[in-house]
């Protein structure tokens, strides 16, 4: 399996590459009144509307300075998932969702590395576990938990 890594502040995170549809530079965001603080608003990607999830907010990290625009990761829709992804049981939302992150990093091929449970001090809310590649650790984001908490529910803050 391939994973795509990215950074939020100084910490490295990852999602399976198969749930990524496209990376792109930040687009203008339209704010949605009354939305959860972890939702920045919506963007228009080539005619499709996507909800933008602010990953900093999700991990209670202070906002990015205005001088750093960050980057965006567009997730596949449930429909767009390739067969391999379905086989692996990967989960996404029905509608386009964008993760707003600080910086997209790399793509790694996992060769037998295991996803370990996250250490207890990690905020478990949106985490599936931790992967070690060489000397680096990557926190695996749980797309399911993220979507359940922010989009499937009534967009209330659900305590973990």
């Amino acid at each position: 399996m391939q994973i795509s890594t990215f950074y939020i502040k100084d910490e490295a995170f990852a999602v399976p590459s198969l749930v990524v549809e496209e990376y792109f530079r930040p687009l203008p965001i339209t704010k949605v009144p009354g939305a959860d603080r972890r939702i920045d608003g919506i963007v228009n990607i080539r005619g499709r509307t996507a909800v933008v999830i602010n990953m900093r907010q999700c991990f209670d990290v202070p906002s990015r300075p205005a001088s750093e625009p960050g980057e965006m990761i567009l997730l596949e829709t449930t429909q767009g998932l390739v067969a391999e992804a379905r086989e692996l049981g990967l989960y996404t939302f029905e509608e386009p969702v964008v993760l707003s992150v600080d910086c997209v990093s790399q793509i790694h091929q996992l060769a037998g590395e295991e996803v370990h449970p996250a250490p207890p001090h990690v905020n478990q809310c949106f985490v599936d576990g931790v992967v070690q590649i060489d000397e680096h650790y990557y926190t695996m984001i749980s797309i399911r938990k993220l979507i359940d908490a922010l989009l499937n529910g009534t967009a209330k803050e659900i305590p973990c």
Partner: protein
Amino acid sequence: MLAEQKNEHKFSIFNALITNDHREFYEKIINELIGVSPICNQGKCTAAAISETATEQEQITELMERVETFAAELHDGTKNLFDQFYAAKEDFCRSIYCTTAYIKINLIDRTLLERTCDVRWWAMETAFVECLERINKISRSLEKMLHEMGEFLDASRAAFEVPTLETNWTMRDISQYVDDVRAFGTRKLELMFNLPVYKQFRAKVDSLSEQLGKGKSQEPCLNMLQKVIKNIEEVHQHVAAACNRLEDIGSSYTLYRDLVITLPDGTVIANANPETREAVLGRTVTNEGWFQRARQEGELNDYIIEKTSRSIVDSGNSLVFSTRIHSPGKDDQSIGLMGAFFDLEEEAKIILQDYMPRHKDGDTRDGWYSFFTDINGRIVGSSDPDIIDVDQQAHLPRGHRKLKSGETISSYASVEGNDSAIFSAMSDGYLDFPGLGWSSHLIVPCRDIFASEANCSVNGISPDELMRSRLIPEINKDTYVKVQDDKQSIKLISLNGIVFASKLGKRGVALGPVFEQITETGDFATSKMEELLREMAFGELRLNLQTLETFSKQAIDLIDRNLFERSAAIRWWATDKYLWKAMSDPSDENLQAASRRLLDINSSYAMYRNLVLSNRMGRIIAASNPELIPDIKDARVADQPWFTKAMRSKNVGEYSVQDVGPTDLERGSRSSLIFSGAVRENGSRTGEVTGVLGSLFDWVTESGKILRTCLPKDRNGKRVQGCIAFYASRDFEVIESSDSQVIPIGSSPELPPEHRELAAGESASGVFRLGDHVYIMGSSRSKGYREYLGLGWSAHILRPLF
């Protein structure tokens, strides 16, 4: 030769100015980018082969096209970047080296202004006026006396033709003595000014007088001889007095090769240099340019300046300042001339060899030349006379030969086989000195201007911090942001490609290497560009540091030169007749005369707050501005360094100086820098010290003025905001500051060691953090100037980075 081509100038790798490093650099980037096209074609072919649907193929093809467009943009970006890089360096170097050329000519102008004051001031010295009045008078009557002496001698010879009983002398015998003396009748000038000749004459006269004394009725003739001798000896006394006075000046003002006084007909009657005196006195300068101009134009101007290198007075390269000497109240008629031979050769050497980069062994770096040309384009001083010949016509591009006052220009030319840049600045005079129309030229090899800064780093600042600083022009900052942006864009493109390929499963494997290659190429090109940008930033930083070093050097040089003048003046004034007279006989009349004299001097030299005369007990007995002293009656200076040092001095030509600080002689603890010289009994050279003359230099005003002229300016000549200049004493205490809010006077800022541990004349530069502020700073330590050794001060110029 490459003309100035900034506007039509677009980057070309074939331009001779581009360094080999950059050619290689450029080639690598371009090669990588050229490689993108075949890779993309390969990607499109692979897409056609593996795609199952048209959409898939379209998606891959679109990705490839984006990569290609992007590579083309990078290609243009690289060219633009190099363009900016060279234009920025060119621009900056033009500004810094034109400034350096200007500083050099300005230093000359400042010195020359002082010299014009010197000669006019000296010409008013009563000793010279009295001497000239007497000698002119005696010279005129001596002609007649010598003629009469001849007649008397002839009469005596006739009287002796008839042998008398009293003598055994024959006609032939006395005739020989008469002839010996008579032969001197036509050698008036030699008798007056050539002591050996006079001595021969005197011996002959003595012998003749002895013989005549043996005859009868020879008194008229003997009286005549005595009268001639008396007059000639009076001339000798006046000459000796004038020479003595000139020597006093010469030993105070060592920047003159010689000083002469001539009669209106050009006969030199006195000079300052005892070594050449015998050869110079009595000779005429009537054929010399400076004399002819001074005699003619002297009526219109109060002084003239003429360059000479073949005077009978001095064969060196001099600039003669001359002025006519008048009897008091008779300004229409000159009684003589004064000529001061300023040592241009030495002065030009000091200035021209300064502000040049050196090898460790002290030699100026090859290919760097600095020289002055006069209004006709003739070289008047050169940093390397073996290559740039003095007195020859300078080989300069046309534009550099017709500058306007104060104008600067630069262009490229080949000089001595080096591709070089020439920076020229024309004098615009200084204050009321209009300048001589001279220009200063600085030649810098192109290889040094465009030297690679690839491995440059400066302690105390990171490349990113530097990139954000105020030093970096907006256009470069924008490019930096753009390159980083591009870097990220190309990364996203290839990541998208890889993600896309991974979703094709096994079919996508073939696309993998294509995207890897694109990632690599993109990374390479953009990181190279970042490197170049950083090099550019460090280049900009280095030039800024160099500029600050230049300005700090200028600041310390200007103060050293100014204080040299002060040290020369005090030595000369301390020998003034009115002062030692008041010391030996402190009558009210003499004290008033001394005070008047001090006021006279002070009114011509506005840079002094006060001139004070102290007796040997340390009591102030006369002052030019007594009202400035808080408690003049009780003022005692006996324990002050300026006084004690002067009391201990051994002879004239010595001076003392008391470092900047508060003094009892000023109200409100205003800081003063005090120079002092000993007043000696009867004004003699090594006589007992009878008092001390002190001059209170107006430190606060004058040093502030100089500091302000040394603050950095931008390309439009406007002062850069937030810059600070300050002087620090030997103990690194601030003694003057252009911004006493940030750098207060009396404080001791924590200077980095490399700025503290400077040897005399050395400069350093670097990053300086003061509180929350980050500055770059240039520092230079005083090396003194001629006999003014300096007080170990340093000058520091700060420019804010943020």
